[in-house]
């Protein structure tokens, strides 16, 4: 079902072509999930949304991200599920569960590879991972963090994990890695908070033999922890540049519910970009579309999810679209900023006292 842009750059597809093709894909994906996921069918039916009408992309019903925590949403038979992704996401305790069949799992990898090739080229680079090796621990669940590390590690070779089993920086391995590969391009990967914690804060420069001037950093996972201590994206970049001469920094944004079709922020412009596999809308409190440069709730569409109805999701993040097709960095498609999670209102519970 998925159309891969094998020899095309997925960030070079212009609005006119994309809109038409994307609408058709979402239409058939919606039909697919309607036919194969009972809960999804109920939602479409209750909204009296007619799939045979000429609908606009913005009018297709969105699934709020928290629904994946409350229900097991699947569009394939349970026997076809080969992997279940689990994330903690928004509300902490309950986990969202994403059920992958073989096709969906392999499409995630293919799409991610297609997107990554724009940043990294076709060649696989030596890779430094700012984390512990997940295979050191025998985990029963396949959490989002290990999934991301495993998922991204296929884009590198000669993997080196910065942290040892005790969660300390392994300077010996790091220096071995830098000595061997630091002279030419190499890839650094990690969660935004882990990069801050380890590369910006903990790392002792005097113990490191070489700088990171040849590194390409790819990081993601959200700014929630850093917002609390008032570290913005630009401060983050500035600190990395000053401390270890790391300049080429790519931030990515995406949902575990839409693994694969990530949005990439280029250090050249500082904006996140939609690829040909994804689309973004920003909506106000009435779910009406907002014009560019107005802040609101982010809705994300992806062409990847087939084994669960995650192709059209209302997130709990606040963002704004800056423009489309005309970013100074040269990438096409919508570009935008994420301002973090919508602030939690004061929760009043079962109060008998009023």
């Amino acid at each position, binding site marked *: 079902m998925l159309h891969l842009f094998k020899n095309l750059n997925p960030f070079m597809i212009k609005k006119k072509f994309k809109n038409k093709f994307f609408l058709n894909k979402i239409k058939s994906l919606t039909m697919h999930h309607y036919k194969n996921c009972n809960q999804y069918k*109920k939602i479409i039916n209750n909204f009296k949304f007619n799939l045979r009408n000429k609908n606009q992309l913005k009018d297709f019903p969105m699934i709020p991200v928290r629904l994946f925590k*409350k*229900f097991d949403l699947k569009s394939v038979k349970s026997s076809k599920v080969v992997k279940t992704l689990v994330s903690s996401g928004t509300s902490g305790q309950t986990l969202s569960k994403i059920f992958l069949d073989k096709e969906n799992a392999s499409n995630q990898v293919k799409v991610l590879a297609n997107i990554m090739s724009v940043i990294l080229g076709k060649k696989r680079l030596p890779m430094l991972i700012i984390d512990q090796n997940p295979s050191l621990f025998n985990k029963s669940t396949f959490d989002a963090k290990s999934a991301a590390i495993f998922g991204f590690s296929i884009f590198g070779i000669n993997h080196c994990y910065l942290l040892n089993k005790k969660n300390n920086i392994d300077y010996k391995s790091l220096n071995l890695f830098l000595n061997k590969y630091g002279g030419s391009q190499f890839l650094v990967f990690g969660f935004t908070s882990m990069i801050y914690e380890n590369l910006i804060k903990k790392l002792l420069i005097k113990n490191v033999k070489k700088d990171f001037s040849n590194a390409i950093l790819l990081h993601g996972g959200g700014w929630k922890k850093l917002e609390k201590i008032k570290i913005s994206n630009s401060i983050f970049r500035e600190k990395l540049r000053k401390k270890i001469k790391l300049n080429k920094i790519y931030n990515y944004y995406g949902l575990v519910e839409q693994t694969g079709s990530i949005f990439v922020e280029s250090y050249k412009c500082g904006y996140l970009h939609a690829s040909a596999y994804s689309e973004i809308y920003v909506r106000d*409190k*009435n779910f009406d579309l907002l014009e560019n440069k107005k802040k609101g709730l982010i809705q994300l569409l992806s062409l990847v999810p087939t084994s669960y109805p995650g192709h059209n999701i209302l997130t709990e993040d606040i963002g704004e679209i800056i423009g489309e097709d005309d970013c100074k960095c040269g990438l096409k498609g919508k570009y935008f900023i994420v301002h973090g999670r919508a602030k939690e*209102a004061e929760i009043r519970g*079962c109060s008998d*006292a*009023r």
Partner: protein
Amino acid sequence: MPDKQSIEKDITYNKNFKTKIAEPFNKLSLNFISDFSQELRKFKKISLYPDLIYLIFWCSKYKKKITENNEKYLRMGRGLVFHICPSNVPTNFIYSFFFGLLSGNSNIVKIPSKDFKEKEIILSAIKSLFKRRKYLALKNSNTFITYDITTDKTKKISSICDARVIWGGNKTINEIRKIWIPERSIDITFPDRYSLSIINVKKFEKESPKEMEKLVKKFYYDGYTMNQLACNSPHFIFWIGKKNKEAQNKFWNCLNKIVKTKFVFDHVHVVDKYTNLLENIINEKNFNNIKMFKNNLYVVTPDKKTKKIENIRGINGTFFQKNIKNLNSLKEFISKKCQTVSYFGFDKYELKDFLKKNNLTGIDRMVPMGSALEIDIVWDGYDLIKSLSRAISVE
């Protein structure tokens, strides 16, 4: 187990703490409550907190009501009351405390650990009253404590209390109930409840537009003030009588207008509301119609087969509606969980008649629309003054 006094001292950090027993509505407690409301008024920004405004009103209400005591038994407080209040409700604990105080008891009140501004304001008012000489006796027989879910403290206090008042979800209540209390002690529990509204169609359709708007405003107050999260917030409206679609639409259109001008949604509200709607869609099979007035108001009409309604709950302005022929046909929808029924267009005799005739296990309050969120000393079917005191016969 250490003795009662040493546990009291240990828990309250007050070496003078001692359980004091008094008559219900004793002067000291009444004065304290009225001085408390004076103290609250001193806060300049009090108008920002509707819960506190209501609390002030509530405090003044009790002075009047209480004097009509013509009981033939002498009543005295049970002794030490242990209140366990929900961690997510800002003002609940103070009402629980007042129930204990008014019925003549000493109180240990476990208050929410979460930081609510309302909680701070209430506690600072209490603190300043406790500093006054005339309330020294109350200071040494009442205390407010917070701790996390360490059952150790709960066990200790439970072992010396004469009554436990437990608010919270069913799970919390069941957990706490497993903890031993002395044989003569009692538990009063306030678990999750469900509330609804009823409207007499015949009366409603005769209302002038102005009167209609007044009524809808009252419903707005009941339904939106606590984001439908309170046990007494309505989720369902039953239209009783011959179906009048036009009148119903008038009601909802009017409500929509009021919400648009009065209620301020934030992003989290609307995401929660939309998520809740979809959850309801998935959990229930039978919705005939869903009308979304943007995100201001969702009105859901389940189909005829829907009978079990206690799990169909809205949030931030999602209401379910149903037409039924007469008041007696409401009984099929009433379960143990049902607490408040707010009404329009019925008289008290009709309502009492309905309650007596129908073998009901639910409904603890029937109040006019607009009063659903009020809290009374008779609550969830308990007369709290009677429940928290002993009746002593002297012949």
